[in-house]
């Protein structure tokens, strides 16, 4: 197990090196350049040249890359020319928001998706099954921003039950030692701030969790159906075990393997930021950060942010692989 984990961690090195080259080149292939983004419509050619000079954008590409990687290895991701803050600090500020949001979405998707897929599979052809099939299709096909605005229209504007934007009420004035707002409320002895932050997570969490929910429901249903037809399930039922015990002990556990893969992949995706959800809900996470960096051609943020998220993504996948070992002992011995 340990050797497995170490080998996977070592594999990160070539993956990230290759990725850093790709990101570096991709960012430079964007139309325009940071110098025009900075100077805007009043820029003269002389000014543009001057900015290229000061930002080192006129040096040869390999040299720019080596300088950059040297800094990255020292933990310095550079400074964003647009916000003028160190990229590392910006990420540290936004990533907790993304984690909170992704967690909510995963909890929603898993919490609803697995029971739903399970029930649907155990009663194929029932109304639950049909509803879950239609629901999954809808969940995958509704654009997230449309769903987001719809949810907000109903629950924030019309009913007034939940807030429509941000991570907490603009007038709550709570302290945030860690940046995880729900946790911060508990740490600072301000449970109403936690409650406030939780309420702000509900709508974006649902909007963001819908696609994973649809995937998880369908995979759970398919896996449970497949396992239900296995011989050992029939045997268990034949020897008179209660149906609920068979379901839980024999069916669900064995069906979890493919479901875990999907959950892992989806979590990785959710953690890499949710551009649309974050924009619609004015949720200040990694997604909107990177999206505005693309718009501003903010090289430093794009490079640093994408590299950071790639590491997160690879790590989450590593965790999923390790989780296999927990669920399925056969993986460990291999």
């Amino acid at each position: 197990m340990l050797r497995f984990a170490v080998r996977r961690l070592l594999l990160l090195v070539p993956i990230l090196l290759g990725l850093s080259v790709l990101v570096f080149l991709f960012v430079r292939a964007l139309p325009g350049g940071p110098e025009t983004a900075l100077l805007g419509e009043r820029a003269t050619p002389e000014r543009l040249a001057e900015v290229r000079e000061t930002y080192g954008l006129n040096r040869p590409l390999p040299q720019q890359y080596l300088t950059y990687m040297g800094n990255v290895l020292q933990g310095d991701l550079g400074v964003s020319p647009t916000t003028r803050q160190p990229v590392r600090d910006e990420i540290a500020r936004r990533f907790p928001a993304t984690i909170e949001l992704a967690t909510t979405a995963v909890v929603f998707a898993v919490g609803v998706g697995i029971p739903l897929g399970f029930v649907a599979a155990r009663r194929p052809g029932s109304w639950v099954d049909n509803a879950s099939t239609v629901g999954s299709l809808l969940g995958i096909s509704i654009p997230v921003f449309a769903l987001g605005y719809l949810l907000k229209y109903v629950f924030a504007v019309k009913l007034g039950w939940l807030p429509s934007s941000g991570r907490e009420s603009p007038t709550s004035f709570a302290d945030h030692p860690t940046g995880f707002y729900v946790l911060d409320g508990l740490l600072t002895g301000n449970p109403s701030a936690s409650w406030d932050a939780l309420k702000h997570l509900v709508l974006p969490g649902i909007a963001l969790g819908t696609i994973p929910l649809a995937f998880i429901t369908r995979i759970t249903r398919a896996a449970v159906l497949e396992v239900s037809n296995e011989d050992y399930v029939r045997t268990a039922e034949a020897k008179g075990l209660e149906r609920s015990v068979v379901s839980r002990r024999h069916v669900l556990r064995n069906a979890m393997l493919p479901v875990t893969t999907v959950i892992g992949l989806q979590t990785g995706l959710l953690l890499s930021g949710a551009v649309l959800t974050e924009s619609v809900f004015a949720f200040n996470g990694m997604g909107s950060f990177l999206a505005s960096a693309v718009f501003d051609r903010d090289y430093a943020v794009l490079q640093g942010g994408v590299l950071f998220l790639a590491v997160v993504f690879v790590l989450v996948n590593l965790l999923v692989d390790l989780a296999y070992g927990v669920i399925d002992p056969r993986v460990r011995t291999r």
Partner: protein
Amino acid sequence: MRMHLRRRGLVAVGLAGVMALTACGGSDDSGTGASGDGEAGGTLVFGASADPVTLDPAYVSDGESLRVIRQVFEGLVTTEEGGTEVVPALAEEWENSEDGLEWTFSLRDGVTFHDGEPFDAEAVCANFDRWYGFTGLQQSSSVSYYYQTVFGGYENNESEDLSDPLYESCTAQDETTAVIRLTSPSASFLTGLTLPSFSIASPKALEEGNADQVSGNADEPRFEGTFGQEPVGTGPFEFESWEVGNRLVLSRFEDYWGEPAKLERLVFRPIAEGPARAQALQAGEIQAYDGVDPADVERLRGEGFEILERPAFNVGYIGFNVDVAPLDNLQIRQAIAHAINREALLQANYPEGSEVATQFMPPELFGHADDVPTYDYDPDRARQLIAESGVSNPTLDFWYPTDVTRPYMPDPAANFQAMQADLEAVGFTVNPNSAPWRPDYLAAAQAGSAPVHLLGWNGDFADPDNFVGTFFRTKQPAWGTLPDEIYTQLEEARTEADLDRRAELYQAANRAIMEFLPGVPYVHNKSFLVTAEGVSGLVPSPVSNEVFQNVTVSG
């Protein structure tokens, strides 16, 4: 054993999911309630489109930074509420010497900065000397854009591109008299000082906050100091806290020299997307926002929100390079002007309240002339002019930008299509060219290689030199060669000290420009603010100089 734990874990996850679902069905919510509390003196939450870049007035030129800076800081002069005229702020009155080089400002007495330091002539001079003494990256136009616009260069220019400084010195004659000496007479100096970039900051706070430490390494400007995060001025609101992406909080400055602000607190909440701002307003989370989508105006009005129209302070125009055939022909230029149906264009592509432009600057500004030559929509006249011009089969290389909207040009492609149809109807052949706004389009337009192009300008400050002066005071490749008379008129107008005389000079220049017709100005577009019911006292300003001092919330 392990299996049991696992199972229970799964149930817990399922429960949490259900809870998440029910939470949206049953909670009574206090967070979404309006925060105004129904009393004047409460809190107003304003929906901003982004966080400020920094709150050091000397370093910014973006609207969201300036909006906050306007509440915290004051300059020597400002613009009148809702207008463009220069009125006293920290200076009660001022005087320009005979030769136009010396400006004597009599300062308000009894003003203190938010940190308790006294405001006096020394403080004024410290700020002017600070800007003048900018070095290194501070001299980059991306850092001190407005300083360069008004003052040109610095004490020690580090780039040949910088012009000679307009500023020479500042002397604190006594506590309440500051004398600023210029290197040449300039009339736009005073209007330039209305810009929030020339706000007077507490010299002590500037020093303690290391405001001038813009360094790190030479490749990247880095505001090392803390002044930009904890600004100290003399304005009606003082800085309280700022959490990027969440909120920026200002509170009433109790020792303000004038009438203290009505609001106890003013909160800026960044919400980037326009529709999301609209919903936050409808849900009562914010009580006002700027940049209302024209498409939302009627709907929001219908729902009981108040729409505030900000007078147009921009101009959208079709620019010509008059050195390029057939645009070197006056009759061709006139034919284009007569061919375009500007009323119909505005009707179709602009919100209600936008105005047809007759010249290259908005009517709110002094120097705007009522008697410039105008070119009404008249296709027959256009055809006749083409015939008289002697140009057979006139062809126009017409450029428009893609992937951009500007305040004066919400949909460039739609504008282009309407104009193309109008031009072809009178016999022009139109070759469409489009390019991404940055950098290709602007580069082409500025280099003069886009003979006919759609462009415009948003006014920075209330001076005609910021409009017609920017375009036509010096020869620019974008426009080609204009008659010398126009260049000299605009240069003379820029330095003329007498305001009435200046206005006349600009009116004359506007007549000459529209006679020569280096382009066709077609629109002054309005922008909109919206406030929730119960909010009053917010006065829209053409130059976005909206101070929340008299704003109240109730209900």
